[in-house]
């Protein structure tokens, strides 16, 4: 009899306890981790970054007035295009860099939904952007977490001159 009672009690407990939560605990923001490095080991002054063609107030992705040897930024990539352009304002000059990529939308989880995964495959630059280097071509929702302290998807070398 004890077994039979425990059968019923545990069955009810099981049914009640299986009410699964539906919160999302994972990131779905896919951002390309970018490091800005100045030439000649010079400090980088104030930098503003916007998406190419995004000139409306509120379109600024990054606005940092500090001076530092290295600046780290997480930048979003285009969803409906195979390349993404950014405008970098520093030393009162607007420079651009472009990243060519492929994209694949994947399901993260039931509670988080879908997120894009990118593969970086080429770059282009203008102005004071000296060069670009793709370090880790795979960009996904965990890139920011992966490169939280060091490492990056792409390195942007800026042409700096000593004043």
């Amino acid at each position, binding site marked *: 009899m004890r077994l039979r009672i425990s059968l019923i009690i545990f069955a009810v407990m099981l049914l009640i306890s299986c009410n699964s939560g539906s919160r999302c605990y994972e990131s779905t923001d896919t951002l390309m981790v970018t490091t800005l490095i100045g030439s000649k080991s010079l400090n980088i002054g104030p930098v503003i970054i916007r*998406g190419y063609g995004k000139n409306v107030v509120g379109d600024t992705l990054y606005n940092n007035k500090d001076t530092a040897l290295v600046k780290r930024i997480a930048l979003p990539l285009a969803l409906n295009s195979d390349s993404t352009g950014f405008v970098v304002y520093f030393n009162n000059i607007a420079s651009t860099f472009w990243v060519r990529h492929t994209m694949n939308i994947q399901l993260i989880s*039931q509670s988080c939904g879908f997120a894009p995964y990118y593969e970086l495959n080429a770059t282009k630059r203008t102005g004071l952007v000296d060069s670009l280097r793709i370090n880790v071509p795979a960009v996904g929702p965990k890139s920011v977490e992966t490169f939280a302290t060091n490492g990056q998807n792409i390195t942007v070398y800026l042409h700096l001159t000593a004043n």
Partner: protein
Amino acid sequence: MDKILRFIFILLLISPLWGFAQKKPEVWRYEGPRFGLDVSRFLMPYIQNATKGGFEIQADYPYKGNWFPTIEAGYQTVDDNKDAFHYTNKGPYARIGFDVNINKFESLTDNDLVFVGLRYGYSLFAQETLASTYSNYWGTTQNAFPKSNLSAHWGELVFGLKGELLRNIFFGWTIRAKFPIVVTKDPHVKPYVIPGLGYTSSDVPFDFSVTVAYRLPLIRTKTIPKPLKTGGRERQELDPNDPENNNQNENNNRGGRISPGSMGGNNSQF
């Protein structure tokens, strides 16, 4: 009057013999295939926020008393319509394996089981993403991914209880640890729920079932299965004072195969 007195006298004389002549009802142990239904599959939509539907049927058959070769089969549908995506998934699945009773049977009528078991599971299912939406700084993308046919293989460790609540009617539950072996990959949508396997959000998904089963009493016996050798006694000893074991000594080894409802039988041992 004389005749009446004589009748009463004879009656009193033979009355103690009635007790011997009156047979106690025989107690048998019944065995046979058991067919069950996992009722948790029907209750789930009312308990969880899930959109799962489907059914699962189960069958087992006793082998040497404590071993139960088991087969389970079912069909599952998932229709998950959220703000960000609409996903569907459906397909049949089957599991094959066995349970081993680790509980000691106390009497001929004791059929309660505490068991551990192993399963091999296979599912053939189709999934489709009817719509998905993702937005960021650059805008919004909307995608749909067509139907793809996938399959999955997995293993299961099972622990459960099963008790005979009414004659031949069993109620029980199991907890299952599942070990995905091979799951066909989809480039866009890793299936987050697989029919028969459950949610794939963890490496070892846990699941449970709540079963109501009916046993076809095809076999009857007077022998209680020996407990498995886990330090227990070699042979089951019965309490002579237990009324459920009242015919044990005189009828042992008189098991027989019967048809349901019939009390007759031959003397073959189960």
